């Protein structure tokens, strides 16, 4: 990770003590975007998986990353909460500015970032030894909250926001694994939401679910965006068209085109985009 010089000569405080909201720093032309991805490159060993990605995500929107297998969309998304570098041999360079703070700056600990940028994975991964309640509360307890009332309130609210509360409210003590696949995924979403993230990354969240479960998740995504900025990776184009406001199309590690979902699907500017949209290649 390089120390990029700040060409705007702005002093910004990256002290951990400061909550992200009270930034004194104002980086020009970035502050109207929630997430600004600048010249991001990602490697697995010597193989470069994503090349020079530049993309800005607006607050309270749903942005979809689409593209064929291997295009780098999952890699990119995992760079946004610094999970990419956890794979042995993997690294990322560039800047990802969230609320004016470059999360790749040397002074930032990824542990702090990941609380504010939540993630939901392809296969639901609730903690098998914990109950439904404990699963949702897991993040809170980890981060040091131990006020029981607050935890109970947040758990209930998160389960409601994940459209799961009514189904489980009377069985919160049941093991998390006793739920169906779709419910487990909503449980994982509730678990992520409990930490009040500002950005929620979703990596192909419905690809292991049946159509009914998938549609519930899609409904959820649309309802969540008022509070959370959502970035969703999907290999299902129709899903992208259904849930997102903006869409980014990637191919072989490059960002080919990015724009409003309407524009991408109705009037794609690049030929590659057009071919992908019309199903000319997987």
């Amino acid at each position, binding site marked *: 990770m390089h120390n990029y010089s700040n060409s705007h000569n702005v002093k910004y405080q990256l002290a951990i003590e400061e909550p992200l909201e009270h930034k004194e720093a104002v980086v020009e032309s970035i502050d109207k975007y929630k997430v600004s991805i600048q010249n991001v490159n990602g490697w697995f060993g010597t193989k470069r998986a994503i090349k020079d990605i530049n993309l800005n995500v607006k607050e309270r929107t749903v942005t979809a990353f689409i593209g064929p297998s291997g295009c780098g969309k999952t890699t990119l998304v995992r760079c946004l909460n610094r*999970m990419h570098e956890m794979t*042995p041999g993997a690294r990322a360079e560039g800047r990802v500015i969230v609320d004016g703070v470059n999360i790749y700056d040397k002074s930032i600990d990824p542990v702090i970032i990941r609380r504010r940028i*939540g993630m939901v*994975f392809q296969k639901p991964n609730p903690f*098998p030894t914990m109950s439904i309640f404990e699963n949702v509360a*897991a993040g809170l307890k980890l981060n040091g909250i131990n006020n029981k009332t607050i935890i109970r309130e947040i758990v209930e609210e998160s389960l409601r926001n994940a459209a799961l509360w009514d189904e489980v409210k009377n069985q919160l003590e049941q093991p998390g694994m006793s739920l169906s696949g779709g419910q487990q995924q909503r449980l994982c979403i509730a678990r992520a939401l409990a930490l009040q993230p500002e950005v929620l990354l979703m990596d192909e969240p419905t690809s292991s679910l049946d159509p009914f479960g998938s549609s519930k998740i899609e409904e959820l995504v649309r309802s969540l965006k008022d509070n959370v900025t959502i970035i969703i990776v999907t290999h299902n184009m129709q899903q992208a068209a259904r849930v997102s406001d903006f869409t980014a199309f990637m191919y072989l590690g490059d960002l080919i085109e990015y724009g409003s979902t309407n524009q991408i699907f109705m009037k794609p500017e690049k030929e590659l985009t057009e071919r992908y949209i019309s199903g000319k290649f997987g």
Partner: protein
Amino acid sequence: MFSFLVFGAAVYTLLMVGLVAYSVVKGSIDIFSYEGIGFVIQTNWNPVEGRESFGALPYIVGTLISSAIAMAIGVPISLAIAVFISEIAPPRIGTPLSFITELLAAVPSIIYGLWALFVFRFWVRDLIEKPLYDAFHGYLPFFAKTPFGLDIFTAGIVLAIMIIPIVSSICREVMRVVPNSQREAAYSLGATRWETVRVAVFPYVKSGLVGATMLGLGRAVGETILVTMVIGNVIGPGAIPTSLFSQGQTLSSLIANEFNEASSDLHLSALIALGMILLILTMAINIVARLLVKKKVKVSSGAKSE
């Protein structure tokens, strides 16, 4: 023809187990008919002709206490090593390290005994026992006796070293089975590395870790030659340890010490009876341990295939 041969070999295993049970029972019949089941809780050890009286209790206690010390010291260390190799160290450090811990298992216990007797006991005496004695012997019964290095404490420590390879390698094995998606779930909630291990790995493999511990216990309980060289070798009621620095005796160490000089058939029978008690103890521990570890590995691979 071939399959007959092969089948026959399998029968051999069962035969061996039967042989073990038979020998041990046959050998101990004499003492049990002489003293009855009370043998197990008596404390005398008097082989003198005409006044024979034997009791296994002090040695059962000695075995349990020395093994308990070995567990208390060895299990946390083994777990820490397993966590380091499996969760913290990069593979190019982890692989040679696990090889090195395996080397510890390859050292014959007679050589552990030699080293413990001539080298290690002085370290223990001077670096651990004397300071503890000086500081606490007035108040805590644990440290009451004057330490000179050959006691159940030293035996316990060296036993701890001996069980490290087996406990840590099984801990590592069960931890390896934890799917990475679990760890990622914890990290994505903003957990530190230790918190991830604590929340995503340990609960997942709890019974496997317990199983590993019990396998270590089985090893510690059965160890003979090392113990007999450093535990101090006392017999009779005085062999029940009253402090960490007491001399002691375990079931296996007494058998090793007295077998060749047993003065009568009854004496020999008493020794073999100690062996039977040891056998039952070890078998129970190992069976429970294997069940726990097998269950863990099975459940995990079952869950993974979902």
